[in-house]
């Protein structure tokens, strides 16, 4: 059964130096607060996995937490580049990072395999692209019935998956709705999982389009109101597009990035204090 913990305690307990972590969220419900806490606790040598690493992974990479990135699309959606990610890949700053690169379809198949207890997933994918030459994690497999050649990718089974959800009950059952991305698969594929939520309620009432992740497959639930900001939680907040735009300027320059992390993440104690520090309101 999931324990209800502070985010600080949950990160300290489940994210270790060298851990393989997945923080998923497909534009919606991105666990920003948890990313900050990892930076605050100075975790190092993480293998960070995510289909769409965006701002929070840019922060982790720039802060030196990540030694390997497995991903399929790394950008600031609607804005442009992830400057810290680019600086790491192009200039090895703050240090070299290894990358393992896939397509969305391949990453999705890998999470599904991981959640299903299978060592690999099968898809029609990557054929004819140069991606296949850059990693040993894309192989061909023959259909035993038709002899057709397809593509196999290895399961993803993170040490810890971290997601943000709308709410949980006091027993740690987690409910999310709206765009669900690959979050359920990420949790089910992981050895441990942390879920930050907007709200903890006495009883979860059904929501159209909603899913419940039962408490017994979750390790920790942490109450972090607005913890997806500048991403959003449908029903609780809206995406802060201007924050995404402003990230471009902050991250473009190493000094301004370092300063920002120092002032707003390392210099704050938790997400509330971060929010006050950058001047965002927890309420929308």
């Amino acid at each position, binding site marked *: 059964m999931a324990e209800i913990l502070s985010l600080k305690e949950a990160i300290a307990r489940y994210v270790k130096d060298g851990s393989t972590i997945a923080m998923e969220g*497909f*534009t*919606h419900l991105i666990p920003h607060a948890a990313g900050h806490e990892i930076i605050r606790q100075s975790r190092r040598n993480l293998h960070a996995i995510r*289909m*769409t690493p965006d701002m929070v992974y840019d922060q982790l990479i720039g802060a030196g937490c990540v030694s390997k990135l497995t*991903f*399929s*699309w*790394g*950008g600031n*959606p*609607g804005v442009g*580049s*992830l400057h810290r*990610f*680019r600086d790491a*890949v*192009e200039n090895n700053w703050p240090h070299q990072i290894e990358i393992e*690169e*896939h*397509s*969305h*379809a391949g990453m*999705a*198949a890998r*999470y*599904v395999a991981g959640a299903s207890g299978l060592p690999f997933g099968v*898809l*029609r*994918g*990557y*054929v*004819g*692209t*140069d*991606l296949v030459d*850059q990693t040993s994690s894309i192989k061909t497999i023959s259909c035993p019935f038709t002899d*057709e*050649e397809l593509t196999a990718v290895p399961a993803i089974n993170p040490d810890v998956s971290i997601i943000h959800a709308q709410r949980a009950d006091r027993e740690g059952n987690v409910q999310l709705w*709206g*765009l*669900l*991305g*690959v979050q*359920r*698969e990420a949790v089910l594929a992981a050895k441990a999982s942390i879920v930050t939520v907007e709200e903890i309620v006495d009883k979860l009432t059904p929501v159209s*389009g909603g899913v419940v992740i039962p408490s017994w497959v979750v390790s920790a639930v942490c109450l972090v109101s607005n913890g997806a900001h500048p*991403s*959003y939680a*449908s029903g609780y907040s*809206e*995406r802060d*597009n201007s924050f995404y735009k402003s990230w471009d300027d902050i991250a473009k320059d190493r000094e301004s990035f370092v300063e920002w992390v120092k002032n707003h993440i390392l210099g704050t104690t938790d997400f509330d204090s971060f929010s006050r520090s950058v001047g965002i309101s927890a309420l929308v």
Partner: protein
Amino acid sequence: MILSAGQSAFRLWCKPMVIASTSASTSASTSANQISTDDLMIVNAARVLGTLAAAGKAACFVGIGLPSTAANLARRLYSPEPVLIYESGCIGSKPTRLPLSIGDGELADTSDSVVSVPEIFSYWLQAGRIDVGFLGGAQLDKFGNINSTVIGSYDKPKTRLPGAGGAPEIAATAGQVIVIMRQTKRAFVDRCDFRTSFGFGDGPGHRERLGLRGGGPKIVITDLGVLEPDPETCELVQTQMHLGVTAEQCIENTGWKLRIDENIFTTEAVTDREINALRELQSA
């Protein structure tokens, strides 16, 4: 052999039936309706979608930016409407305003169905249910291959780009691919530095040899006009130019030895109805 006008796919769409009643000579010319090159690309892409939808090829896999704007414009201009599918899991989205990101809550709220990201790639894209996919990238080569991974070498990139996302499997599987890109010497290259999305590969027969199920890039819409693959050589040929654009301009802005179709003609001017619908959409 260069395309004759009769063979060219654009013949199908340059005069979409539903706007035939609008005088073709009606060009939008009020100062409030200055037509930008983005507008030109959006309107021409919407026309293609309108024609495809009329032919029953309506399921359109959309990314944010110009493709999303074009697809939503087509929904307002044509009947039957194209069916919009976003990789964030939204099927049959009918947003009332332009989504700011692929995970915009408006997309989920106005969809027929919202599914997980793994499912959108397996049950919908991979299964061959997508008629049209939109793609763009940093480089497009003469065989319609696209690079959205790196400029320079993979190991020491000059510019690290966001990466594949959903593109490789859209390129492989969609019934046809519409490319929307600005036509410049830097972007329209003889050969991509990295092949992220497979077009016609090295030329005729390459898709077939790889067993790809989709039709590949059938049309490239640029700020200068339209390119289409020569059905024999698979090389992209300029088949249409926007009003005021010269063949020399197209050749100058293309990194390979661009051929101009002998029957090249000018894209129909953007009509008042089109530009008004677009402005309405953009201000919604």
